[in-house]
């Protein structure tokens, strides 16, 4: 699908601006290249540290009942394979499991160890680097480094969604960034003058250009005259951020049915330090609602879509003093999508018995979340193992292929 210039963009170009705006290469994307792939990849960052043990419950392990009482099939959770059970609050996802469109990897983590900081942990997860990089500033994220290797990738190929900055897509490859509730609706004259003002400021010029592009694409045809534009922006500005989940999935659906192939966004609420049953319920229901909403919004494109959800670390194996869990190490990943070969819980189970826990406190990690992400990229886009181990996830040993897709 090639984009033609919207009327507003043509007007902008036609406005007498003399030198500056017309000279900008960023203002002349009359036709946008389409990425040379049909595969859609959705990367969800679960911020706060998801409790893998309560989410994908190893109820077949003799140590489990002591660590997470009131969990497992006996308490209404859904048996998956005779050893693992799925938290009841993800029960809506069972049809996906049965259809082979849902999978998990357990006892996995990033290389981050011992410090257990959310902020360093999330940065390392998104940067895709080793523990020696923990606590440093990062210039780019692994999804952006992958994008640099994807043939035919254009600026429209990848999109970070939400109000939060996503390190995972930061880097040299151009990528877009937008939030469903954002809207830019200026008069053609104001738009042209603002482009003139921003012209010599790279950051503002590029952000403004993307905002124009996305806003025109999303809302362009709905807006008539200038008064309508102002009204539209006023409505957007004044509205509460309601129905956030619906807005998000509808927006993702539209984008992924268009030119976008790769999106990343965050879901929070996983930092369950106290009374975690209630806290986790909200987070899990939000996750399953988002996933099912996305599937609905994608329609037929769901068949070409793979979703991967990952978190900065798991949580302590034992409950803490306030029936919650503190920051841990090994956790779980969730995969979904019509393109998935699911219906499996992957990974090497380390056990929960005496001496099995990491630092006598956390679920041990026997797998690296980066390896699963890397095999996904290899499976979907044919990315070379050498590139994955050398550039996208430097220093990673991919191990054997879990054949996720």
């Amino acid at each position, binding site marked *: 699908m090639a984009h033609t210039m919207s009327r507003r963009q043509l007007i902008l170009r036609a406005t007498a601006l003399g030198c500056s705006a017309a000279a900008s290469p960023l203002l002349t994307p009359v036709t946008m290249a389409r990425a040379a792939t049909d595969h859609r990849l959705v990367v969800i960052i679960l911020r706060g540290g998801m409790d893998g043990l309560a989410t994908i419950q190893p109820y077949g392990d003799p140590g489990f009942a002591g660590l997470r009482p009131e969990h497992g099939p006996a308490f209404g959770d859904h048996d998956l394979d005779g050893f693992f059970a799925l938290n009841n609050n993800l029960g809506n996802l069972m049809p996906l499991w049965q259809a082979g469109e849902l999978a998990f990897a357990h006892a996995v983590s990033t290389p981050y160890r011992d410090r257990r900081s959310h902020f360093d942990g999330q940065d390392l997860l998104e940067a895709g680097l080793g523990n020696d990089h923990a606590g440093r500033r990062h210039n780019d994220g692994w999804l952006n480094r992958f994008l640099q290797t994807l043939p035919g990738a254009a600026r429209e190929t990848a999109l970070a969604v939400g109000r939060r*900055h996503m390190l995972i897509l930061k880097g040299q490859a151009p990528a877009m960034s937008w939030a469903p509730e954002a809207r830019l609706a200026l008069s053609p004259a104001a738009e042209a003058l603002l482009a003139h003002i921003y012209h010599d400021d790279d950051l503002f010029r590029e*952000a403004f250009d993307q905002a124009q592009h996305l806003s025109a694409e999303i809302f362009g045809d709905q807006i008539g005259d200038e008064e309508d534009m102002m009204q539209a922006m006023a409505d957007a500005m004044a509205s509460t951020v309601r129905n956030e989940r619906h807005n998000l999935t509808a927006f993702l659906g539209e984008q992924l049915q268009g030119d976008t192939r790769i999106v990343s966004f965050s879901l929070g609420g996983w930092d369950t330090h106290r009374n975690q049953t209630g806290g986790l319920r909200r987070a899990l229901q939000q996750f399953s609602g988002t996933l099912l909403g996305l599937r609905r919004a994608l329609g037929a494109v769901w068949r070409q879509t793979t979703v991967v959800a990952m978190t900065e670390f798991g949580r302590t194996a034992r409950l*803490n*003093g306030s029936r919650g869990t503190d920051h841990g190490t090994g956790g779980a990943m969730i995969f979904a999508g019509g393109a998935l070969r699911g219906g499996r819980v992957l990974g090497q189970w380390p056990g929960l018995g005496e001496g099995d826990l990491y630092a006598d406190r956390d679920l041990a990690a026997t797998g690296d979340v980066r390896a699963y992400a890397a095999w996904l990229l290899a499976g979907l886009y044919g990315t070379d193992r050498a590139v994955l181990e050398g550039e996208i996830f430097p220093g990673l040993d991919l191990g054997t292929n879990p054949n996720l897709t």
Partner: protein
Amino acid sequence: MPDIATLSAIRFGTGLTPDGVGPVGAEALLASLCGTDQLMARFPEETFHVRAAKARDFQLARRARRNGGEEAEAAFREVRRAMQTDMVRQLGKTIARGVADPGGMRERLVWFWADHFTTAGTRGPMRGSITAYIEEAIRPHVTGRFGNMLEVAVLHPVMLLYLDQDHSVGPNSRFGLRQGRGLNENLAREVLELHTLGTGYTQHDVTEFAELLTGLSTTREGEFAFRAARAEPGPETVLGKSYGTWRPARLDSIQKALRDLALRPETARHLSLKLARHFLTDTPPEEVLVKMETAYLESGGDLLQTYGAMLAHPASWQPDLLKAKSPLLFVTSALKALGVPPEAVAVADPRDLRRYVFRPMIVMGQHWQGAPGPDGFPDSLEGWIRPQTLAARIGWAMLAPDQLGLDLPDPRVFVRHALADAASPEVIWAAARAETRTEGIGLVLASSEFQRR
């Protein structure tokens, strides 16, 4: 090119005013911090004690509603409306203080430290009380010793509730043994990672410090309480130093540990880096950090000395604007440049404040008093300026001044008021060519020169 007067106002203050002149240069800025804090009295806030009682009323009304009945429903709606009005008024007053101060460095520091000691949410007594926490625990200490702020902020009920400390129990305390309860590490970890050291501690330090912090709690009414029966029998070793005794557990061992943490070299470095990153650039030169941490350590954690070291360094006065205003600073500085009377902001219609300030700030990426985590809002240039958040800033610039019914000046004059010598030829040119007055003002406020600092 912005000169020292412009930089004083936009980099370290709440922005330029059309008429008044704020403090110019390092000495004047520091002097502006030394006098009494007059804005506190001019725009007074309720105490935490009063706010906690209102939060309690809110909870009671909500509980009564669950039993049904039209009367209870109506009563709850009334309490909820009052609570929402109070909260949005608190935001109005926060902005009004920034507008009222000719300089504004104190307000900037209050915002900075409130973010450093982030609290968020509406759990129990916290609902509507965060402003009072900032007023009591942060504001009086921004020009004093960091250790004092640390102690008051960490022991404040709002912080104890926010980071679950009221749920942490010494496993070997009388209460813990009887109830089978134990530690919750949340506050201990964030004090070490976010509030003080940043780096240089281990999981062992976190666990020991969490044990030391047991006993800190709140009453049902939301007041501070130290419950010795919940405190883990000491001593605990944090960063190689021993605190507390076997029994009785005492609050002053916790205070002693906090005072020691405040004076650690890691803390000096962490705070200097954070201040320099906030005020100067995302990548401050090592030189200025060394000056700041030295001033901090030699003065026993005196923040005024630390700011002084920063302001004395040429990095404070280089003319490139390498940081972006936060949404709160953007809105405040816009109203200040437009010459809006601060009292008008403080008493504005709460619906207007919600529609044209609170909600737009969310879309700009700053949910006021609703930060996504205890690390506050991302403060980097790229963290604030992204396509979706820039669109929200532009939308506000174009619409809010008009919708709020403000007297809009001639854009050709306004560009001088709002930007002074930071105005580029492009923005001066554009302001003169806008089709309407509203758009002209909007272009100036949306300009990169106005968004940067």
